[in-house]
Structure formats: C-alpha cells, structure tokens
C-alpha cells in the first residue's frame, strides 16, 4: 500500500540524519541506510504450510510497524523468509545460509520441535539468536534461544483444574507418539493427581492413522469425563470428526491441547463444539488490544484471514527484537541477547516479560472454548509464568 510513502519517509529520515551529523561516514545523499536483516525459517510447503503462513502474517505486520516508525535505530528491517519444507535437515541448511551468507541479526522460527532441535546447535555455533514462537514441550534452552510461546504448565495449570471442576475428575489422555504430547501428559498427570482426580487411560498413536474407531470405543468404555487430547494437525481433525460421528463427544468433554483458530472450520458447521484450550491469544476477544491487533492483520491480509495465537507470538518475537536492540543501542547479535533478557514488551494482550535466565515468556493466558464457528474466551487467566525446564 504505502511502500513509496514509507520509502520517502525513510529517505527523509536518512537525509535528516545526515544533516544533523555532517561528520558521519559519507553516504550518497538520500540513499537508505543498510537494512537490518532478520531471517525466518518456516514451513511454506511439506505439510505445515498453515502454521508457516500464520507466522509470516505476524512477522510481516511487526516489520511493517517497525519500519513505519523509522526502523530499528534508524535502519529498516528486512525479513528474509526461507521455506524449510517442514523438514529438520532443510531447516539447518537454510539457517546456516542465513547466518553465514546473509549475516542476519537473528532467525525467527521454525514450527516443529524436530526442526528447532536440529537448528539450535547451528545457531549456537553461529552465535545468532533463534526466536522460537510456537507452543512446545519445554527444555529448549541456551544463550541464543528465546521462546515466545507457551510451555506445558502455562497451557495446563488452569485448564486441567477447570475441566476437573466443571466436567468431572476422570481423565483420559490420548495423543500423538512424540515428545510434545508425552511432556504435556506427564505434566497433566501431576496436576490431576494433585486435584484428587484419576487418569483412567493414556495412550499414544503414530501419525497417519485414518481410522480411530477402536480407540474411540476404548475411551468411551473407560467412562472418562474429560479427554485430554494432544494429536495435532490433520490426524487430530480426523479423530474429532470420527469421535463426533461415533457419539463420543456427547459423553465427555475434550481439552484440545494446542488448539487454535487455525483449526476452526475443519470440523464442519455445528461440529467440534465445546472443546477447551488455554491460549495466549483469542482472536474473537472484545478487548481493545486483541481487537485492534486482528484489525491490523486483516487490513493487510484480507477480511477473512484467520488470526491465531501463532500470528501474535511471531509478531511479538520480532517486536521484542526491535525493542531489545533499541534498549542496548547497538545492532549486533550479542546486543539482541543482552536486550531481550529481562525485557518487558507490550503485547496486544498486555505486558509480556522475557525471563532473564530461562529466555521464556511470562504472558497473559486465556481459557477458551469452541462455540459455533469461533473460539471464545471463557475466562482471562492473567499472566502465567513458564516452567521452561532449563534446570
């Protein structure tokens, strides 16, 4: 929309800077200062495109807002997007190239735990901060790793007691057979035991299963009142559709771990109702912050754009990076680390604080449920501190 205006503005800023500091390094009159490059390694093909696109929306809005205010310390931000094809090996290749060739200030992304764990050694070797903004199992720690989304305790601490109080104290855990559901369930088990509830069953499934009837029958037979469900993506949608068809959803309430607005519309009209989740952002919120944020995204990306917490957390990651560098007053990778540690940033949902030691965020959480074709807030849970698992 206003690229020319923005460029003119940046040009004007550069000229003023020159005029104000005539002894500064000689630069052609009116030329833009060199851009601050920030990499983004995200899945734009290979299966998790949906999350890659959500992340991109947030990053692009943050970049546009930073540049509209004159950039980072007077230099515009330039995002370098790389498609990791939902693959760890590709993620590492793209990350090394961004670090070595493009000399980026930091890298945002990726989405999956496998890609993140594969990238972390590369980032540490290149002494380049990784800004990870997806909810995950915890334990990604290090000087060059910052996490801007939730870890298990933030999602579960209020969700499990709420479900136990309102729906029943017998829980069944069902999820995919990998690290995130395992860590989620381990944490949930502690919470349920503390509440005097029971875990009547727990099982994990490989990815790619298309027929869940046997599992659904077993969960139904267990008499559980709450199903803690951690099967992300298409498999999760398939399970919920079949559970609905086979009548399971009338018999218990689903706590759909990792649910977000990105799933809405996948179940069909009137289906997948009354499922609960705790998230750091609810797009349907009536509060000024979220409403304004959604409007800003939709003004750029279209009226129908789905806005999930992934958009907000990726926006948060880049916005925090800009604040951090401004706080320290110089643009380099160590300045990013120094600046981010202990920083508080104003997010659409309120202040977010980045832990000085664990590099994870304390942020406002919301208990939400599916209702009609929306995810709606049940209760604002206030700021939740992370148990990052950094030892």
């Amino acid at each position: 929309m206003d690229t020319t205006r923005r460029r003119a503005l940046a040009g004007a800023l550069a000229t003023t800077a020159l005029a104000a500091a005539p002894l500064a390094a000689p630069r052609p009159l009116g030329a833009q200062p060199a851009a601050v490059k920030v990499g983004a390694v995200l899945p734009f093909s290979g299966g998790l495109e949906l999350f890659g696109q959500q992340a991109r929306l947030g990053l692009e809005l943050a970049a546009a807002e930073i540049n509209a205010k004159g950039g980072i310390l007077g230099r515009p931000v330039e995002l370098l997007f790389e498609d990791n094809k939902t693959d760890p090996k590709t993620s590492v290749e793209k990350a090394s190239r961004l670090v070595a060739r493009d000399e980026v200030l930091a890298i945002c992304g990726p989405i999956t735990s496998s890609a993140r764990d594969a990238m972390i050694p590369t980032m540490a070797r290149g002494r380049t901060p990784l800004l990870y903004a997806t909810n995950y199992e915890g334990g990604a720690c290090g000087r060059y790793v910052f996490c801007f989304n939730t870890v298990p305790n933030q999602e579960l601490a209020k969700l499990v007691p709420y479900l136990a109080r309102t729906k029943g104290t017998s829980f069944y855990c069902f999820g995919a057979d990998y690290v995130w559901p395992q860590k989620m369930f381990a944490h949930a088990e502690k919470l349920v035991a503390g509440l005097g509830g029971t875990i009547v069953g727990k099982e994990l499934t490989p990815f790619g299963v298309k027929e869940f009837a046997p599992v659904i029958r077993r969960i139904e037979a267990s008499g559980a009142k709450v199903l803690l469900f951690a099967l992300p993506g298409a498999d999760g949608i398939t399970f919920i559709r079949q559970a609905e068809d086979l009548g399971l959803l009338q018999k218990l309430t689903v706590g759909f771990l990792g649910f977000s607005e990105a799933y809405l519309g996948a179940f069909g009209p009137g289906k997948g109702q009354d499922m609960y989740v705790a998230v750091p952002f609810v797009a349907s919120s009536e509060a000024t912050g979220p409403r304004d944020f959604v409007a800003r995204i939709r003004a750029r990306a279209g009226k129908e754009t789905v806005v999930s917490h992934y958009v907000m957390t990726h926006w948060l990651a880049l916005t925090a990076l800009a604040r951090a560098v401004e706080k320290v007053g110089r643009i380099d990778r160590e300045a990013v680390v120094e600046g981010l540690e202990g920083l508080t940033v104003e997010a659409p949902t309120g202040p977010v604080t980045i832990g000085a030691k664990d590099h994870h965020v304390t942020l406002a959480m919301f208990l939400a449920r599916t209702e009609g074709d929306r995810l709606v807030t049940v209760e604002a849970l206030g700021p939740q501190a992370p148990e990052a698992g950094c030892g």
Partner: protein
Amino acid sequence: MPTVSLLLLDALGQALGLFLVASGLALTFGLLGVINLAHGELLLLGAYTLLAAERAGLGFWAGLALAPLLVGLLGLALELLVVRRLRERPLDTLLATWAVALVIRQTIVALFGPAAHTVPPPISGSVELLGVPYPAHRLLVMGLALLVGGLLAWLLLATRLGLAIRGTVADRTLAAASGLAVRRLDATAFALGAALAGLAGAATAPLVSVDPQMGLGFLLPAFLAVLVAPSGGAAGTMLGAGLVGGGESLVAAFASPVVAQLAVLALAVVLLRRVAGRRLRRER
C-alpha cells in the same frame, strides 16, 4: 469393554474402507506392476473434486460421480505422458510418480490453501446397529466397497476387456502377438485404477480431515494390502485389505494403535517373505 460384535463391525468397516482405497492399486500395481506413488494424491484429488462440487452447489452425489471421472482422465494422461515411457524402468517410475505426487499436493495447496476442509456426509444420521448408533456414512462406504469389489470381479472375470487385461498381464508378448492392443489395455487399466482412487477419495472424504496431506496416510496401508494379497484380482485384494485393515483395527482395539501398526507391518513382512519365496520357486 465394547462388545466383540461391535469391534468386529469396526474391523469390517476398516477392512472395506481400505479395500476401496486399495482396489485401484490392485489394478495398477497388482496387475500392471506399476509402482504408482501418486496413488494417494489421486485419492486426494477425488476428495477435492467432491469438495469443489459441494462448493459449486452440485451436492455430494454429483461430486461422487465426478471424482472418478476426472481422476480417471488424469490417470489416463499420467499413463500416456509418464508411466508408459518408463515401462522398462520400474525404479524410475517410482521417482517419476513421486514427483507427480508432489506436484499434485502443492497444486492443491495453491488452489485450496493448506488448511483442512470439511465435507459433510450425505446422510448425517446414525443407524441403530448391534445396540449402538452406527454412523450411516460408514455403512455407505462399506456398501460402496462391496459394490466396487463385485463390479471389479465381474469386469476382470466375466468381460472380454477383463480377459484381455488378464491375458496381457499373464503373457504380454503372446497377447500382443494374438492381436491385442496391449498398450491401449495398459492405459485403460491404469485409468480405471486412477478412477477407483478418485472414487475412494470422494467416498472417504466425509470420514477424515480433507487436507493436502491426506493421500499420504492411505498410501502405505493400501500398498501393504495389495502386497499381502494372494492374487491381484478383486477377491485377493479384498483378502489383503481384510488382513491389513481388519487386523490393524482388531489389534488396536485390544492393544494400542502403535502396537497395531507394528503388528500389521510384521504380518506384512512375514507374508511377503512367503510370497517372494513362492514367486522365486516358480521362476526357477
């Protein structure tokens, strides 16, 4: 614990659903010997044809009829442009069809977006069966699988086209020498296999998440079913699907989905060794 008859019904449902998916592969892989890794994506196209038909207001049944037609035509093009040219190089066929699969998947992402879609079943209610409500659409898919199985058996065993296909498979040179247009038969059988994939995709769409990755999950069990099938015809494939699909369902019911997949894989390995041994002995 749910009743045994209910578990058996679930297992039968899974077996018949798998047969529907594997029936196309039985033709292209079981009979023609083409390793078509794009089979899952042909299925995907069937599901998205149904989705597009629903969106255009044509409804489920029109979509179900359109899917095999469109996917069959695409299968014909695939045979003429790719598969035929690699007839003597099975390994290259594998790579080429995998490439086709990638192209189809990303085209779907470009056209329909990466998100999952929903296709409502044509009959949304349930039927009281064995004392529990059983989703009507599952019964519909089971019926359709039986119908396809019957038609496939009839086509292969009781028609001149079926005879010609079987003759070509048994002895290509002799069939060609007897005046059969073997290349045209290849194309016909391949297109038919693709059409069955399209039909399976459309029929199963209301049961699963319709998204660009849906084909992948069907590919492996379908190949397993065809591999363990004692013969390439309809009855053999039905048996293979029964072993793989029904077996997985029953093991999952008594153990867990992880154990079920391992068990089916182990079963396939054992059966394949026996089949391979038999073939080897025959060739000697």
